[in-house]
């Protein structure tokens, strides 16, 4: 056997290395897909907050909830998703009505509170998921340009039962329910959540 490598041998070894690398990559990709879980999720760009998520989920209390993306939120005092700006103003001229029919959108002052002038306060808005029905009224009110668009609807995986008969997917008029691969995430049933008969 010759000590010097012939051109044929070089090409042969190179092809073997490339083939093995490609095989390993494909195997890794398949393993990753096998370990991932396909779940439904709401595409916030397509979602029109039409209220059908509230009624179309197989659960009696929809697995779709409003969530607030704090990095986008303006921490407004006069949040259009919290206050119904068309409602009757109180004695201070602030709208008295709330957008959420379940009063599920809560707020608290963050940072240093100025009790004398509420204009100087920032408010953090969170969703009480036990109350939220996923109607999307707050999401619609927060859409730009009225708000910053920080509120969006999301399928909560701790509530979704993974029934594979997603009523929301079928009903959604804007095809905003998409199937996404989420590695390592497993949708589980919510405590007390029960599917429709």
């Amino acid at each position, binding site marked *: 056997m010759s000590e010097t490598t012939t051109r044929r041998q070089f090409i042969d070894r190179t092809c073997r290395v490339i083939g093995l690398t490609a095989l390993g990559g494909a195997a890794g990709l398949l393993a990753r897909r096998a370990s991932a879980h396909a779940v439904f999720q709401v595409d916030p760009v397509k979602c029109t907050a039409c209220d059908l998520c509230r009624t179309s989920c197989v659960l009696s209390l929809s697995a779709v909830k409003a969530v607030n993306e704090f990095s986008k939120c303006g921490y407004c005092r006069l949040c259009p998703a919290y206050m119904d700006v068309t409602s*009757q103003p109180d004695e201070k001229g602030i709208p008295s009505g709330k957008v959420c029919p379940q009063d599920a959108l809560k707020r608290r002052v963050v940072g240093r509170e*100025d009790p004398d002038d509420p204009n100087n306060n920032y408010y953090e808005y969170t969703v009480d998921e036990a109350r939220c029905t996923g109607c999307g009224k707050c999401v619609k009110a927060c859409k730009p340009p009225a708000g910053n668009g920080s509120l969006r609807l999301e399928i909560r995986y701790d509530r979704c039962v993974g029934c594979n008969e997603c009523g929301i997917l079928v009903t959604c008029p804007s095809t905003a329910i998409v199937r996404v691969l989420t590695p390592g995430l497993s949708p589980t049933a919510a405590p007390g959540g029960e599917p429709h008969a």
Partner: protein
Amino acid sequence: MDENETGPAPDATGDAPRERVSARWLPIASVVGAVGVVAAAVLRPGGAPPAAPSAGSPGAAPHVPPPAQPAPALPQRYARTTVVVGPGKPGEFRRSLSGLALGPHDAIYALGDDEVRVFEGAGRLARTWKVPEKATCLAVASDLRVGVGSSGRVDLYSDTGVHSGGFAAGTRDKPADVTAIRLVRDEVLVADAAARVIRRYDLRGTERGVIGDKNKTGGFMLPNRSLDFDVDRSGVVHATDTGRHQVTSWTLDGTMVASFGKFGMTKPEDFVGCCNPVNVAVVPDGSIVTAEKMVARVKVYGKDRTLLALIGPENFDPMCWHIYVAVDSTGRIVTADPERRTIAVFERS
């Protein structure tokens, strides 16, 4: 037509003709009488107003809307006279329109499509030049220097577009979110929405001071993350404090000297929504022009800050985040609608 075909049958008594006349006029008289009764009821002073839908009716709103107030007759009226830039016109912006400024001879400088475009006369595109991608605002000095702001940076150009300088704005760990700039004498004023203040720089980028931090919150309240301002002839800075629904006025040394505006959804002089006004411009006579989003409209406030004029939402795209405004030397209001990518001129009528 034979009368007997449709009329009453002839009667043998002598009263027949009179009865026939009565019978003919009776329906007409009834209708006239009914109209009269209705008219009297409607026109009667203090008459009952039309019935409002009850709260429990199926179509009732969840909250009682505020009582609608009749639009007051404002002392001034503006009408759109010219569309300088728009679809199909020379110099049309195809992707973006993100800034507006007026030169000393009322030439219109517009920022969009990563270019500065200069329009002279009645919309003649005079020149263009490239600027950094995603530039956010521009300003023109009285000596025709042009400043362009982008994220964390200000660039300076000559009137022909030759780059003459620039500097980083903000701090090293927190670059400025530059949303407005003005060139005032030998200074560049930069609205930094990230730090919620207006920064004063010399032309080399050395910071000379800060405007807007001497208040309880250490800066403007900006839920919409945008700060706009303009400088009047006496050097007073008028800035949008959107979270407070105010325009606040500051001296260059950072002392607040005045403010006006409050939230309100019914009176036209108030500012609507979560955070307004979003843009501001100063009129040469000291009046102030403001622009609001959601409801997209432009208003003119006099020197005593009473509302003088309102340019209604029918003139702008309802989805506008901003309406860039500027006022020329003759008091005409120039607006840039970034959604429709149009620049229009409004004149007093």
